[in-house]
């Protein structure tokens, strides 16, 4: 029983990596393989839009991987292949789109929000510091003192 469990466990553990690389691709040299791996990690699958080509099993992604592979084999540069895809699918196909008027807000947005947050924080800190301590009047102090007293009385009792 125990041995069977260990066998099943071993089988499932080793099955993972085997599944990850379904397609076997042959390259002329390691540099081509590196270029291919980099490209399919950078290009977006248009069907499952939050996956890259490497992760997606959508049929279009399979075909786009094949196209990428063919171009890598023809020794096209990374830039040429990326441009080929951008010409057809637009900047959206790149996970890191270039900075231009269309993508300006996309690139600067997070920093703008950070700045707004910092400004709000600075304002609230300044406001709190500006409140003088003696703005609390005597009656309020007395109520507070009596409340504290009654609390301690209760605890003593």
């Amino acid at each position: 029983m125990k041995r069977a469990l260990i066998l099943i466990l071993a089988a499932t553990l080793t099955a993972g990596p085997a599944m990850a690389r379904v397609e076997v691709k042959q390259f002329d040299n390691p540099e081509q393989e590196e270029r291919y791996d980099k490209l399919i990690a950078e290009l977006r699958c248009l069907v499952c839009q939050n996956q890259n080509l490497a992760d997606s099993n959508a049929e279009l992604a399979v075909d786009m991987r094949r196209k990428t592979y063919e171009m890598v084999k023809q020794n096209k540069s990374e830039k040429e292949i990326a441009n080929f895809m951008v010409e057809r699918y637009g900047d959206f196909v790149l996970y890191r789109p270039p900075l231009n008027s269309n993508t300006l807000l996309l690139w600067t947005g997070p920093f703008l929000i950070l700045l707004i947050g910092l400004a709000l924080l600075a304002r609230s800190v300044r406001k709190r510091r500006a409140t003088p301590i003696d703005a609390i009047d005597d009656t309020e102090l007395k109520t507070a003192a009596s409340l504290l007293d009654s609390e301690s009385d209760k605890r003593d009792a």
Partner: protein
Amino acid sequence: MTRAAVPLAVFLAMAGLFWFVLGKMNEGEYNPRDVPTQFIGREAPAFSLPNLLDPAKTVSTEAMRGRPWLLNVWGTWCPECWKEHDYLLHLARREGVPIIGINWRDDADEAKAMLNRLGNPFEQIGFDPNSDAVIDWGVYGAPETFLIDATGIVRQKHAGAMTPAVWREKFRSYFTDNGASS
């Protein structure tokens, strides 16, 4: 009072935004997954594909020069394609619109069976099992319909089923203006 109003205002603003956007999505006017095509105003990419009905022949963009035409990407696996089929038949038969089909990632026999059953709205059909032409045209789903004018420039694209409303709004004028029968 004013402190409580801030989260309330934020909530109402968000609710309003969702109401608006989801409403547009429901009516089919807004699709967040839509990728704007790169080809409007550009020359139509050439393709040369085997003819689905006669693999010895090829279907190419060149033959279509001189008149406006539609390119429709479809497959039997795509439910919206079945939905729009009747309207494509109407366009081809009643309005005389030339439609070239690209049968995408499909089984040739199944595709032919579908056309036999429902009728064939296409002048010619290119068979594209490996997405060759599809990638060249920047297509990422089916159905997609392109309009190419007489000079070979892409003028319109619609992702999703062709409907009378879409036809009127985006496509019809190109065919009446150019003297094709309407």
